[in-house]
């Protein structure tokens, strides 16, 4: 009965859309309940999952081992950055440029680079393709050096994230540091923190005056069900101006509204906030929601010391609740990443469980037989590459917004390898595997850091432990459980279900008995 229902035309669309929507609601709900650090992790996980849905299709279904997807993410990130930085309106339309348009352009960039590299790679056998994409992983980010004017060269581009509509936010060191903790070997040197000083100051003057309304709108969209829970103290939220300013506290942009805030007596005006905002980074020193209203002069984390250098900026922070602001930026990033991940998951579900997914597997299994069955192996491989490239580009655009930065170091070989590690550990060819891989990529380093902290390991041991574990796990998974975590669980379930006699073993025995199972094709 259920099965017949699922076979109705459009049932797949409804089912997968419902799954994606439920996941979105659940995750967005969670973003409203957790602290900024957790939201930052959620954003990273969603970003990785987005890229790895593409890896699932490319490596798992289509059987093309690619090391270039980090570079494909770079394409998305750079397209996002360059279009937002250089275009005020969408070309030929006059429509004001915004984050959605920039993401769209990033996706188009993904299509183009996917066609190019997928087209080159479609004729190549395993190791040749792996080598070509390795070249892509190393070579493409290096292109940024060729165009320092446009792409920022080795130092990259500091990016103004369109958040929320019309406003700007520059995430500061909080994000950078947390990020580099995850990738100790690669990016640490290359993420220039001093970039923050280079932020174009004219943006301050250009600040849209309608911030209050737009800020509130976006907030309610993202976190309506949970707002009450998080901000338990009503008097903080009662002032509309305040909450809107709170949105932008992280940024350099909201000084002009300062006056509004300060005139409002409800808002705490003590200056303690501004100076000592160094340490928002950890869960430990971040006050819980309960503490938040109770102790208005709690250490303010979201403030970046770099900001405090500027006296103007310092003044801004007077009387503003930095906790609230930090919360909102990270949550906004998490919601953005989760939204993109859910849209991509919807597309990936349709593809993996549709005709296209079976075609990819058919070509991977036996390209000659696929051709005879009317499937073009070349086209099929290119389409897998393009799909994975679009997903990677979207993930790259999200990454750019999480970091508020694009640079060759952020998209290096390490990122490409991480994606491969995640997809292999989670389970090649399974979308759940991609999700599990994403969680592993974010949480394993965190877990190791905690463990190392407890045991007092040296820093260079701690920093490298996650990668050592990844490398060894990848080898172990390939040797012992090629299906990764998801594949192993599936085969376990299958074994439990059919304990008495395995039909597959029986079939194999018969085939061997026949002695003619040799397939020459």
């Amino acid at each position, binding site marked *: 009965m259920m099965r017949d229902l699922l076979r109705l035309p459009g049932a797949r669309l409804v089912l997968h859309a419902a799954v994606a929507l439920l996941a979105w609601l659940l995750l967005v709900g969670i973003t409203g309940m957790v602290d900024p650090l957790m939201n930052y992790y959620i954003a990273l996980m969603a970003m990785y999952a987005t890229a790895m849905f593409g890896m699932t299709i490319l490596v798992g279904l289509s059987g093309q081992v690619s090391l270039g997807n980090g570079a494909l993410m770079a394409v998305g990130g750079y397209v996002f950055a360059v279009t937002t930085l250089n275009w005020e309106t969408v070309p030929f339309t006059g429509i004001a440029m915004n984050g959605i348009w920039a993401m769209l352009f990033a996706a188009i960039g993904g299509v183009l680079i996917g066609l190019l590299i997928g087209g080159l790679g479609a004729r190549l056998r395993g190791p040749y393709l792996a080598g070509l994409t*390795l070249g892509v992983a190393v070579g493409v980010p290096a292109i940024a050096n060729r165009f320092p004017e446009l792409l920022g060269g080795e130092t990259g581009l500091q990016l103004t994230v369109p958040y929320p509509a019309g406003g700007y936010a520059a995430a500061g060191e909080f994000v950078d540091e947390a990020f580099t903790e995850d990738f100790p070997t690669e990016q640490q040197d290359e993420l220039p923190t001093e970039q923050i000083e280079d932020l174009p100051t004219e943006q301050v003057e250009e600040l849209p005056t309608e911030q209050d309304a737009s800020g509130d709108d976006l907030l309610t969209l993202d976190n309506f069900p949970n707002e009450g829970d998080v901000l338990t103290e009503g008097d903080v939220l009662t002032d509309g101006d305040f909450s809107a300013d709170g949105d932008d506290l992280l940024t350099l942009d909201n000084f002009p509204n300062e006056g509004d805030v300060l005139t409002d007596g409800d808002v705490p005006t003590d200056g303690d906030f501004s100076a000592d905002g160094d340490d928002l980074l950890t869960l430990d020193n971040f006050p819980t929601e309960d503490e938040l209203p109770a102790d208005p002069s709690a250490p303010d984390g979201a403030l970046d010391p770099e900001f405090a250098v500027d006296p103007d900026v310092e003044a801004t922070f007077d009387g503003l609740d930095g906790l609230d602001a930090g919360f909102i930026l990270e949550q906004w990033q998490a919601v953005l990443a989760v939204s993109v991940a859910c849209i991509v998951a919807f597309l990936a579900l349709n593809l993996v469980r549709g005709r296209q997914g079976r075609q990819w597997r058919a070509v991977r299994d036996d390209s000659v037989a696929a051709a005879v069955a009317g499937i073009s192996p070349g086209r099929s491989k290119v389409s897998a590459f393009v799909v994975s490239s679009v997903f990677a580009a979207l993930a790259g655009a999200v990454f750019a917004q999480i970091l508020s930065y694009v640079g060759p170091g952020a998209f290096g070989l390490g990122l490409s390898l991480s994606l491969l590690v995640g997809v292999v550990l989670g389970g090649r060819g399974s979308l759940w595997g991609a999700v599990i891989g994403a969680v592993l990529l974010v949480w394993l380093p965190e877990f190791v850091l905690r463990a190392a902290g407890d045991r007092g390991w040296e820093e260079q*041991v701690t920093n490298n432990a996650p990668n050592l574990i990844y490398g060894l796990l990848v080898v172990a998974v390939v040797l012992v459980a090629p299906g990764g975590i998801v594949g192993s669980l599936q085969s376990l379930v299958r074994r439990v279900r059919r304990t008495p006699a395995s039909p597959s073993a029986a079939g194999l025995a018969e085939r061997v008995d026949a002695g003619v199972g040799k397939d020459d094709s």
Partner: protein
Amino acid sequence: MTSFIDYVLGGFGSGMIIALMALALVLTWRATRVVNFAQVGQAMFTTFIALSLQTLTGSWVIALVGAMVAGALLGVIVQYLVLRPVKRADTSGAIIATFGVLIALQAAAGMIWGGDSRAYPQPFGNTAITLFGREWPVSAYDLVVVGFAVILVVGLTLLFTRTNLGLAMRATAFNPEVARLSGIRVGRTLTIGWALAGIVGAVAGVLVAPTSAISPNSFDILLVFAFTAAVIGGLDSLIGAVALGIGTGLILSVVSGYSDSSNAPVVALVLLAVNLVLKPEGVFGHHKARSV
């Protein structure tokens, strides 16, 4: 024109190192039909070992020999523990496993020796040689590098053409089943192939280290160059790997000379892509008819 000649000559040393690393890739490919993407990781690791030995003993030669021994051991370990047990039906598995080894080796090196770049002592003069009244972009050290490369290539060629082991290796590379039937211990032959590749890679690592520096990731780019050279050379051909390795070094040197060294990866990528499209089996490779 003089600058062109300078750039070409300046590329010889790095070309030789690319050639050696490409040679290592070819040796493993011939032995087991696996491109060992962990090769530069192994070379990096053995170079760190060499650096430790050098610091300990002060002898460049002991360091080199130690690296070669370690390289052979590491090659055997990787082949025996990682590549041999990969299921044959899992065509992507071997490639992914080599990257797993690369990640693990880089992390292990970072743990032991730290993530920072370290200088490797220069054993011989690094100043340009002056001859015929002009300064040449070649140092004594470059000549040593070229000398080592030539010795290795000649030695390997002799091994493959003049010894029973070489014959067994060629037979195994050509057809393992037939080789097994004719009494060759195929498993051992394959492992020796990996040991040889490990030695060659280790030498390349020790030779390149003084000209750049050494860190867990510092050889990544060398992997791309060496892979490019090995593939354009045909993956199967020792001579192809050496010739194209030197060629790649020269091209990169000229490109870097006329523009900027940061272009080198892009140029390598373009070379690789063009070659793979025009002649996927490589310049020195044998075309194999597609079987249906």
